[in-house]
């Protein structure tokens, strides 16, 4: 006696969250059944393995049918085939687009191309995430990227509108898309200590302050080439950043800046002497990072540079986070007192974001 066909269709589509998770995690039906058995569900419910197998198959089939719709979540809302309560729909979408930290760290900043997709074969064993799940996550990134790539307006809003994700997840996707678009290097060894959250935080600051959309003038002139407002860094702004070089190139200015900072922080900083000794190096590092951003290659290395030029030196001197904060605040603010420096607004736009990023990046 073999079962040829075995289905269950509810007027309201049944969704088992546990099975959905197993499916999303890319387990085969038999693995999923084994995992469910291990969870003790048989004892709890008095069911048999055969029942579990049939149940799992059913859910997998349903998910498989739903997957097509999940690729365009608004379709899931408007389709008539599966009657699913709205909160369940939201759960389906949210979980489908959720990703693993380990995975996203592997592909963050990489081009979402076929080439990268091939790398998934290596990423899967490395991260312990099934290849199937890796593919799903990668395809999600790519799909979101493709859809919002050409769109005007707020990146987060666009993502939310087209994928109906929660605010939180939409922000994460905005970061992923932003990183993929700008190809920031995140995979270097010295960046390994950073979490996706760190990068996402930086991405959000950068989107808010460094992109075309951030300027807030775009909507008035639809014909200007202000597309991709949130995706691309403001080229003009990057160009202008070269002007900041004067802060380190002009020795007087540099000295003045240093003395302003040191005066203000004397006695307040536990690592004052180290700061004083390193001030010029640090300042040079930060300003040079800015000046280099005209080149795409250097944009990509932004985070490597920040870590190398600032985070690592401070860390080797064991600066407490609070000292870093005090230093950066003072370092940014003091520039306003430099009479010879004319690019205050530019400096604020740069440093305001950078300060936030650095503080976030500064941890073990």
């Amino acid at each position, binding site marked *: *006696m*073999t*079962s*040829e*066909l*075995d*289905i*269950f*269709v*509810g*007027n*309201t*589509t*049944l*969704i*088992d969250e546990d099975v959905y998770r197993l499916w999303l995690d890319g387990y085969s039906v038999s693995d999923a059944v084994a995992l469910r058995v291990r969870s003790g569900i048989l004892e709890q*419910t*008095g*069911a*048999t393995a*055969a*029942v*579990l197998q*049939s*149940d799992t*198959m*059913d859910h997998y*089939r*349903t998910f*498989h*049918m739903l997957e097509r719709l999940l690729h365009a979540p*608004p*379709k899931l*809302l*408007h*389709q*008539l*085939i*599966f*009657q*699913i*309560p*709205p*909160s*369940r*729909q*939201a759960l389906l979408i949210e979980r489908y687009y959720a990703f693993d930290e380990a995975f996203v760290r592997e592909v963050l900043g990489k081009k979402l191309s076929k080439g990268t997709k091939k790398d998934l074969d290596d990423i899967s064993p490395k991260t312990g995430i099934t290849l199937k799940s890796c593919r799903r996550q990668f395809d999600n990134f790519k799909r979101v990227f493709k859809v919002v790539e050409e769109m005007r307006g707020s990146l987060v809003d666009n993502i939310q509108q087209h994928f*109906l994700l929660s605010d939180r997840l939409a922000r994460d996707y905005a970061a992923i898309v932003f990183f993929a678009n700008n190809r920031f290097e995140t995979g270097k060894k010295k960046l390994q200590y950073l979490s996706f959250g760190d990068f996402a935080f930086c991405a959000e600051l950068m989107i808010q302050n460094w992109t075309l959309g951030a300027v807030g003038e775009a909507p008035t002139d639809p014909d200007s080439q202000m597309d991709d407002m949130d995706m691309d860094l403001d080229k003009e702004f990057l160009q202008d950043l070269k002007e900041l070089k004067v802060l380190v190139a002009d020795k007087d200015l540099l000295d003045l800046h240093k003395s302003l900072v040191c005066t203000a922080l004397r006695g307040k900083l536990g690592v004052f002497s180290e700061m004083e000794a390193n001030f010029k190096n640090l300042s040079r590092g930060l300003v040079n990072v800015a000046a280099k951003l005209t080149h795409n290659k250097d944009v990509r290395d932004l985070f490597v540079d920040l870590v190398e030029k600032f985070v690592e030196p401070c860390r080797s001197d064991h600066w407490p986070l609070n000292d870093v904060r005090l230093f950066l605040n003072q370092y940014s603010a003091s520039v306003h007192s430099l009479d010879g420096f004319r690019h205050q607004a530019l400096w604020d736009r740069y440093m305001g974001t950078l300060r936030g990023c650095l503080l976030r990046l500064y941890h073990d």
Partner: protein
Amino acid sequence: MPGKLKVKIVAGRHLPVMDRASDLTDAFVEVKFGNTTFKTDVYLKSLNPQWNSEWFKFEVDDEDLQDEPLQITVLDHDTYSANDAIGKVYIDIDPLLYSEAATVISGWFPIYDTIHGIRGEINVVVKVDLFNDLNRFRQSSCGVKFFCTTSIPKCYRAVIIHGFVEELVVNEDPEYQWIDRIRTPRASNEARQRLISLMSGELQRKIGLKVLEMRGNAVVGYLQCFDLEGESGLVVRAIGTACTLDKLSSPAAFLPACNSPSKDMKEIPFNEDPNPNTHSSGPSTPLKNQTYSFSPSKSYSRQSSSSDTDLSLTPKTGMGSGSAGKEGGPFKALLRQQTQSALEQRGGSPHRFCRRREFPFFTLTAFPPGFLVHVGGVVSARSVKLLDRIHNPAFVGIMGNTRSYKLLDWNSFNSDEPETRDAWWAEIRQEIKSHAKALGCHAVVGYSESTSICEEVCILSASGTAAVLNPRFLQDGTVEGCLEQRWLEENLPIGCGFCHIPYDELNMPFPAHLTYCYNCRKQKVPDVLFTTIDLPTDAAVIGKGCLIQARLCRLKKKAQAEANATAISNLLPFMEYEVHTQLMNKLKLKGMNALFGLRIQITVGENMLMGLASATGVYLAALPTPGGIQIAGKTPNDGSYEQHISHMQKKINDTIAKNKELYEINPPEISEEIIGSPIPEPRQRSRLLRSQSESSDEVTELDLSHGKKDAFVLEIDDTDAMEDVHSLLTDVPPPSGFYSCNTEIMPGINNWTSEIQMFTSVRVIRLSSLNLTNQALNKNFNDLCENLLKSLYFKLRSMIPCCLCHVNFTVSLPEDELIQVTVTAVAITFDKNQALQTTKTHVEKSLQRASTDNEELLQFPLELCSDSLPSHPFPPAKEHLESASANSGIPAAQRATSVDYSSFADRCSSWIELIKLKAQTIRRGSIKTTVTVEKASPMGEGNFRNRSAPPCANSTVGVVKMTPLSFIPGAKITKYLGIINMFFIRETTSLREEGGVSGFLHAFIAEVFAMVRAHVAALGGNAVVSYIMKQCVFMENPNKNQAQCLINVSGDAVVFVRESDLEVVPTQQPTANCQPLCTEGEVTT
């Protein structure tokens, strides 16, 4: 020009990409009705076209309006080649044809293609302007309302229940026409879908005409089925119950029903022709001289199977000649006469087209209070027919090749064929009628018909419950009728009246074991009662009910034509007998004494027959406590064998005890409790007193009865019998928190919460062809059903505590070694705590309710708990002891509540004799194979519960509930929008790519649900009640990577309003609120 149909095509969305180059589609729409076609403009390059067309107007006869579906085809325009069809939508415009239903159909419909499934959606608006047509000779029956619901629909009141209507239409199946060889599968499928749609429309119109003839205005319990007879054609047949319904719109309608009929009758001109009836039924005297020889004395002892004991029953003609007999006798006779005359009058009413006979059948399963007076038992009949032979016998000789003849337009010739089918059914119905008479009943309720076809053999089955009805609803209300009614009601004990035997105990049609009613002590009741109807709302029940199934397979040799039919005819009686025995054993094992909703389905396959009986077992307070089951070994000398036997006996006794606990069957306790409760009426008090004084006796007696007196003896004489006993014990009870039944109402549960989940589950197993024995087959089949149930319990575990209601199993044998089981049901959650409290007093409540109820209460279990006036007497009286002792020594066997006999093929007359003999001990019933269970969705209970508060703002798709029940828990149905009757075919030539057979069928069923919901939503409804999947025919050819499936579903589209959404409706008093609600519904019409 009686009608103008107006259609507007608004927009499309989610269309498939038809042009690979552009990834877009140039869509346009053809709108067709009858022979007229309109087209929209082509909307270039869009997957979401906005046609916003003008109103397309069709001027048509109302006859066409009823028959024809509106056909909407979406196509992709192609400049250079033929336009590609994207898909179609068929819209049944019938709901627009009567004033109280929908006024407009407007909404998004899935665009369906038989090869690709649903491909996008289209927004359509449909309206009908109907001109009044006073033509008396019209062929249309616009205005007659149809309901699938097998009870009087909520917000209506039955003024008169006229009776049985039936019709069938026959045609050539397009799949078998020569042209099918040269056309695409899509064209063939569409031809079929359209044809069935047309035939359904025509059928409905014809039934409507009959209803108008009877001066009714509605058909309730409308059941339409189609038989795919293959080469010999396609039959669409329908049965229903004609009624005159009154919309409940004013408080006046709520007057006690007994006063109103006469008034209402006058409002409706009802000139019943006083002609003597042309009826074939006999004199109205109770018949004791039926044509059936039920003489129990015929030697039954030859049967060696486990039911030996019941066969050895001797007629106890002398027994119980107490006052009850005298009291009941004349009363019953009077009732019978009255009922029959009412029925016959109806039959005698003038019909323009001649109908040969009238059958006093009712497809209803629940009735207005007081309608059902007595229930006799299940009656059923089966007949084996050869399609090939029967098929147009007239033609065979003349034409030589009937098929070529039939290629002509079906309208031109279909007059002849239905005659044959009509004759078959008439024959069966006649049989049913006479069985009912044998039981002293003049009516059959809960009546249904079904077929099982394999190649050219067809088994026709009909079954129902013989009953005595209150003539009040059948006659035009005369003063006498009303008086009579009062008299009846006064004399009818509440809550047990229907259990009292309708037949004359001195001339019992079969051996039965009668006792005085445990409830009223006045009349005789059988020890077991089987019925096909729902549990009457006023029935006094103890504990909870449960689903009971008997499953059986029998191998048969492959054979051709007549030999095959003979073989089947020979097997049938044995199957019926065994199914019955199984049911009886299982019922006893549960400690219960009555079955409701009994459906026995016999399915024929190439090399086997399958029998599946489902029913809901309950403990009726009026009937005696069932005895236990005793096992007797055949070789008493063998010590180890003895031991084995006693071990089994212990197991059985334990199981019975466990079941009693599980289902809370504890009659003595309840009676004691009741004694302490307040006594509302003097009449009841007297009974109470009695019960008080004798309660202690009863207890002891019950104890005694369990072990020996009434014990049902199973004789284990061979391995078969052993198997039977084992299989008895293998049925696992549902996990705790789950209950199941196949009726509308779960006895003992009355506090439903609002979460429901309807589902369909299909399983197909392949039998290993080696060593197929009956036992192996039985085991496989049993496992299949049990595993299916287990799976359901597991899947729905998040809904606990819940009850699977209306569990409907259908078995089919699509191929040699394949068994397909389809289950539809609904899971409903309930409040456990409340349930525990209420069940204890349930009996009293239901009794109380019965005395105060009005018609609206009928099928609302929710309302059962309305008032909590306590008290019902459980009168253990002296008679009890007497009768008990009189009966001692007589094993309570199957109480043949029903006698039926099936008419097998005429040519097998020798079998009839045998069969008739069996019939005495067998309750035969044919069961429709569909199982509908409603469930609440296990998914997201939380969501469901919260849903009413914050529905997703984004979603544009309204929720449409579906349920096989006639009600929605926690809600009031305010309006019926019309019947939904849909037929779909789906075919694939890429089975593997679509996920194999499971993927294919899963997607198809989901699509069917979606299309039903879309149609309901477009009518303005938010639920389908009395939903049923009447057919699910699945065929596969994995080698060719092909599969095909046909599904036929129906139900009533309704608007419901949540009780919680209505202002302050105390849930305990829902009945009082019915009125305002109904009026609300009325306002909109």
